[in-house]
C-alpha cells in the first residue's frame, strides 16, 4: 500500500496558541525596547563627556512626555524580561551538593533576594 503522509500547515498565529508561547513572545518583544533604552543611556554618557550643558539638555529631553512614556513601557518590559529569566535560571544552572539537588524554588528565591537588594541599594545610593 502506498503511503501518503499528510503534513499540517503551521498557522502564522502559532505564537498565540497557548500561554507558554505568548510568554516567550513577550520576552522576545521586550528586547528591542531594552536595546533602545540602552542606546538612550549611551547617548547620556556621550552627552556627559561633552560637558554640563549637553548633559543638562539630555536630562531635559528625558523629561518630555514621549520620553517618560517610553521609559515606563521599557521599565515594565525590562522587569518582565528579567523576571522571566529568573524563573528559568534553575533549569540552566542546577546546583547540587553531594547527593542533594538544591530545590529550584530556593535558587529562584536567592536570585530574587539579590535582585531586590541591588534594586534598593541602587535607589538609595543613586539619588537624583
Amino acid at each position: 500500500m502506498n503511503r501518503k503522509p499528510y503534513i499540517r500547515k503551521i498557522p502564522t498565529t502559532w505564537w498565540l496558541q497557548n500561554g507558554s508561547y505568548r510568554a516567550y513572545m513577550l520576552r522576545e518583544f521586550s528586547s528591542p525596547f531594552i536595546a533602545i533604552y540602552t542606546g538612550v543611556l549611551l547617548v547620556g554618557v556621550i552627552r556627559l563627556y561633552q560637558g554640563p550643558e549637553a548633559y543638562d539638555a539630555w536630562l531635559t529631553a528625558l523629561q518630555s512626555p514621549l520620553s517618560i512614556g517610553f521609559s515606563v513601557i521599557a521599565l515594565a518590559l525590562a522587569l518582565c524580561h528579567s523576571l522571566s529569566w529568573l524563573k528559568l535560571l534553575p533549569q540552566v544552572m542546577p546546583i547540587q551538593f553531594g547527593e542533594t539537588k538544591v530545590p529550584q524554588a530556593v535558587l529562584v528565591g536567592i536570585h530574587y533576594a539579590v535582585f531586590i537588594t541591588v534594586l534598593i541599594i541602587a535607589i538609595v545610593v543613586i539619588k537624583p
Partner: protein
Amino acid sequence: MPELTIDIEVLRYRPETDDEPSYQTYTVPYQDDWSVLDALNHIKDHMDGSISYRWSCHMAVCGSCGMMIDDVPHLSCKTFLRDYYPNKVKLDPLANFPIERDLVVNIEGFLEKLESVKPYLIHAPDDPLNETEYLETPAELIRFKQYTMCINCLLCYSACPEFALDPDFTGPAALTLAHRYNVDARDQGTAERTRIMNTEKGVWPCMFVGACSEVCPKQVDPAAAVQQIKVASVFDWYKSLLPFQDGE
C-alpha cells in the same frame, strides 16, 4: 437513569481515500474512571473498527499513546474524560509530525535524530573494558537520573514551536538523551556528541520557550537539559581557543 455520554471528536485521515483530514464525532458512554484511551478502545471495539491509533501499556510507560487532546499534547492513557466532561473531547494526532493515518504519526525523523546523538555509553577504543570497574556513585547518578525517565513519547516535540517551524531541528527528547550520557561519569563520548549538538540543527535553534518541559508526562525537563548543553558548548568553544589542547 439514562446513560451518561460524552462526545469524542477524532481527526480521521485515510490516505487511500482522503486528500485531507476531517473530524468524525463518536458519542461514547461516560465513565468517570475512563481515560481517553479507554474511550478510544471502546470506539475501536464497539463502534468503528477502522479507527487507527497507537497504544500499548496503558500505564504511562511505553510512550505510544501520545496525542493532542483539546490541542494540548498528552498521553491518552493518563488523561481522564472526567477532566473534560460534559464538554466534548477533541483528539488530533501529535502536532508537528506528518499524519500517517488517523491518530498515527510518522516518527521516522525522530528515530534518525535519536540514533544520531549516540544515546548509549561510549568508551574510548583503547579503554581496557575488561580490566576496569566503571563505578557510578549516588551523587553522580543524581546528575542525570531525571533524564533517564524519558519514554520517547514525543509530546515535547509536539509542544516545541522550533520543531514546528524547522522539522530538521534535533529536538528536545534526542538532545536530552544525549545530555543524559554526557553527564554520566562512565561515558567518554561527549566529544563525539558535542560535534553533533553544536551543528545548526543541534542545540542552538532552541529558543527556550520551555513548553517541552511543561507537557512532559515524566518530569524529565528537556528544556533544562538543552540549556545545560548550551552552557557546556560555550565552555567547550572557549576551551578550543586555548593554545594548548587536550592530548597535545
